[in-house]
């Protein structure tokens, strides 16, 4: 039972354009969501998060949107840069539980120069 799903295994965009990575979840008890970026042979690096009381959070080139009714969140990267090429994981958390993160399968983003 996959509670967090990233249905696109890969995405390729041109440098300077927008990258949109999507994530869907099924558990309505999740109240905090995070995006991590992962390079090969490294651990996941925290990018940006959003609480369920918000519908948007922005940090520089990165914006996360949350649609609670659709149980959907997305990460927008504008403008995309070649250094953004990595695997991106969406993760969800129920802060009233033990705090364990439930991860999606990841989306590999390739930004072409």
């Amino acid at each position, binding site marked *: 039972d996959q509670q967090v799903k990233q249905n696109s295994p890969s995405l390729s965009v041109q440098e300077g354009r927008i990258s949109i990575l999507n994530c869907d979840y099924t558990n309505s008890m999740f109240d905090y969501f995070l995006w991590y970026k992962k390079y090969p042979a490294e651990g996941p690096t925290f990018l940006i998060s959003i609480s369920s009381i918000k519908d948007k959070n922005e940090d520089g080139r990165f914006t996360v949107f949350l649609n609670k009714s659709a149980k959907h969140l997305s990460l927008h990267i504008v403008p995309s840069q070649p250094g953004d090429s990595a695997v991106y994981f969406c993760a969800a958390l129920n802060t009233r539980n033990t*705090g364990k*993160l439930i991860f999606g399968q990841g989306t590999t983003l390739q930004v072409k120069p």
Partner: protein
Amino acid sequence: GAGVSQSPRYKVAKRGQDVALRCDPISGHVSLFWYQQALGQGPEFLTYFQNEAQLDKSGLPSDRFFAERPEGSVSTLKIQRTQQEDSAVYLCASSLMLDTQYFGPGTRLTVL
């Protein structure tokens, strides 16, 4: 260093051997988590500590897996009698409370 560190970074074990993986969390972080990541998948939760108390071990796949954090800082994940299906990257993460988790580089375990 300011981040989470893990050792060893790579471990090769023969089937049946015991292994011990170490995690040094960010200083002052109360919460510590262990995850297992198989190739091509997202990390999967193994266990959670709040200080020295192991509050959730629901993700440990078998009784061959054991974790401890005796003084509320460094943690060790031990796998007894390793099997080939234990081959994975083992990630440790820490957080101040139950919020953003910061990950270490992971230990890649290969069981032959």
